[in-house]
């Protein structure tokens, strides 16, 4: 019999994580380091000229009112999208948690938006909100005789992008809320009903507190989703406009890189974003299990 001696096989664990480390380094760590380096330079288009500028790109960014405005705008956008999104998703999850005939069909329908690509989602909303031939304005005109300048006025465009993002991410949230709801034992509800609790009290004092681990997880995931994944929707729906009203950090980054040809400045923005995501993740690890009601 061969003896399993882990002390003499110190290299085995490293060997085992080698493949994933290789992939991670190649596709994650290496590009990250590259962006860090790139953010210290100013480049001419086509890379023919490269000037070392140190931290100047970062100084430029933080003294640029447009960048600071886009940071604040993004924070507001993330906050509203997550707050609104989670409420809507929870309500829908409560509805599709009912044991009804054909409920699986409804669950699938609500999940579909999550499965389609952001580009398609954006195009659908552009069709719906089109000022000339859009269905939304057509119905508003019939009912209230108003025409809303959905994508050509700042406030409405901002609202439209929020609605589209909430709609797009709803499926993901519903699935997790549903799983959370189903893990709450029926006995708790039965006890509450016997004690004469109203359905609102049950929701407020039992369902929501018992869902808090799911909610917390969803908040973290949604922050990351909304910061990065709205790019596609914004690109299709508003291209950051009108007059910067929907120009979020991720979209500004794209513009600086691919339209304004400022790779250094764009890299600096991606490093700042990376920092923010690290902060959120740290927060998640540190407080993920505290102050939250686990059974």
């Amino acid at each position, binding site marked *: 019999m061969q003896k399993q001696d882990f002390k003499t096989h110190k290299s085995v664990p490293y060997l085992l994580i080698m493949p994933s480390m290789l992939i991670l380094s190649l596709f994650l760590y290496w590009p990250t380091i590259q962006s860090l380096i790139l953010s210290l330079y100013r480049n001419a*288009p086509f890379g023919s000229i490269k000037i070392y500028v140190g931290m100047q790109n970062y100084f430029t960014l933080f003294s640029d009112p447009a960048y600071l405005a886009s940071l604040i705008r993004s924070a507001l956008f993330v906050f509203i999208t997550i707050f609104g999104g989670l409420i809507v998703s929870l309500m829908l999850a409560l509805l599709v948690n009912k044991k009804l005939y054909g409920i699986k069909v409804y669950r699938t329908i609500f999940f579909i938006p999550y499965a389609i690509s952001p580009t398609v989602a954006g195009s659908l909303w552009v069709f719906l909100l089109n000022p*000339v031939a859009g269905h939304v304005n057509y119905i508003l005109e019939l009912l209230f005789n108003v025409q809303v300048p959905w994508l050509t006025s700042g406030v409405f465009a901002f609202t439209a992008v929020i609605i589209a993002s909430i709609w797009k991410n709803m499926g993901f949230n519903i699935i997790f809320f549903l799983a959370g709801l189903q893990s709450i034992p029926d006995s708790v509800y039965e006890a509450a009903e016997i004690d004469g609790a109203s359905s609102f009290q049950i929701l407020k004092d039992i369902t929501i507190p018992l869902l808090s681990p799911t909610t917390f997880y969803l908040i973290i995931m949604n922050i990351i989703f909304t910061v990065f994944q709205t790019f596609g929707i914004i690109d299709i729906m508003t291209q950051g*406009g*009108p007059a910067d009203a929907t120009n979020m950090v991720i979209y500004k980054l794209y513009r600086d890189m691919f339209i304004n040809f400022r790779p250094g400045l764009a890299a600096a923005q991606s490093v700042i974003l990376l920092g923010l995501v690290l902060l959120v993740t740290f927060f998640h690890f540190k407080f993920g299990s505290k102050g939250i009601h686990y059974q």
Partner: protein
Amino acid sequence: MKKISLIITMALLVLLTVSAAAQEPVEIEFWHAMGGYNGEVVNDLVERFNESQDEVHVKSQNTGSYNDTLTKTQAAVQSGSAPHIVQIYEIGTQVMVDSGIIIPIEDLGRDVVGDNTFDWGKFLTPVSNYYNVDGKLHSMPFNSSTPLLFYNKDAFREVGLDPNDPPQTFAEMVEYAEALTIRDEDGSIERYGFTLGIVGWFVEQMAANQDAQLVNNNNGRDGRATESYLDQEAVVRFIELWKEMVDQGIMLNPGRGWDGANQAFLSGRSAMIIESTASVGRFTNGLEEMDDQLGTAFLPRPEGVDRGGVIIGGASLWAIADHPQEELEAAWKFLSFLSEEEQQVDWFEKTGYFPVTKAAVEKEMNTQFFSESPNHLTAFLQLLLSKKAVSTQGALIGTFPEVRQIVEEAVEKTLQGDMTPQEAMEEASARVDRSLEQYNSLYQ
């Protein structure tokens, strides 16, 4: 005996394979930004070239939008896999000149290939003027267009306007649009008089139409542009007109881009539009479907201002330098093939982009094409009657794509009422100045 014949056969076989290998066509890559129907026309041209001879084989590839194509070319150059020929939009001209990766096609044709038969004067002057930098044709003019005023003749008749007397001045634009706007009893607008997508190109053209330059140093043609003229009278006047018409509810603001305005015009929600001459065919057919008739006219200008003209827009084909001699020769062969009369006529008739050579225009005259479609003639005359000046030659700006975005944002700020046209254009102008300064500092 048998052995000898075997050896001879073998030797022959070897010889044949070797000579066959020698005849293997040179393969070159061509990246373009023509999607959909226009993309098919490009592919047809490429196929026709490939079949016409067996020395060169062109592989064409659609690389997305104009902007995507420029970005992808940058990435490809840096990773050493650049194409041989690439289609770049007109506003990418300065950045390509500065890139250090291209070879001006005049150098390619004359010096690298030594083609003495090519007639460098064959292009229409307004077209070759745009792509002429430092006295040399830098890229092969390909798809060219200018903006044009389109109007629905039946809408004109309906409200008692003469369909053969389109508006010529800014004041007339307001007057006509007012007359063409139809409101229902609730006051909501059923048809707008005019519509215009928020696209920076139109602002540039409207400045040129007043014989005004966009940037200093003779529109960046005499030296690098360092100062923007966006805050000067010509541009501000046009933005004021734009705002006035939108505020009065006689002009539809369809937002940024082309599609919204197009839909509005084609669905009869708007009676007039300014759009690219490449849309003449599409609009003619679209209005015919509604039993309406299309009219076209030169771009309007303010009263009492001398007419400048239009700048050629669209894109041209650039040759990338870093390739072996035989591939450069192959690229030249393809480029000169595209400028031949037959291909030019074909391209024009199928896509609506101008033919860019004099021979092709003459051919169209002889075949009575213009008398059969007068709207194409309007487009041509507007281009040919443009004043020969730096204003209509078009500006050279290294950060032109960014400048366009800045202009579009300024227009949006004005239309939303955040700023007056003067304020918005002053802010835009300051941003352009900063952008120019940063760009220029890289090349000092």
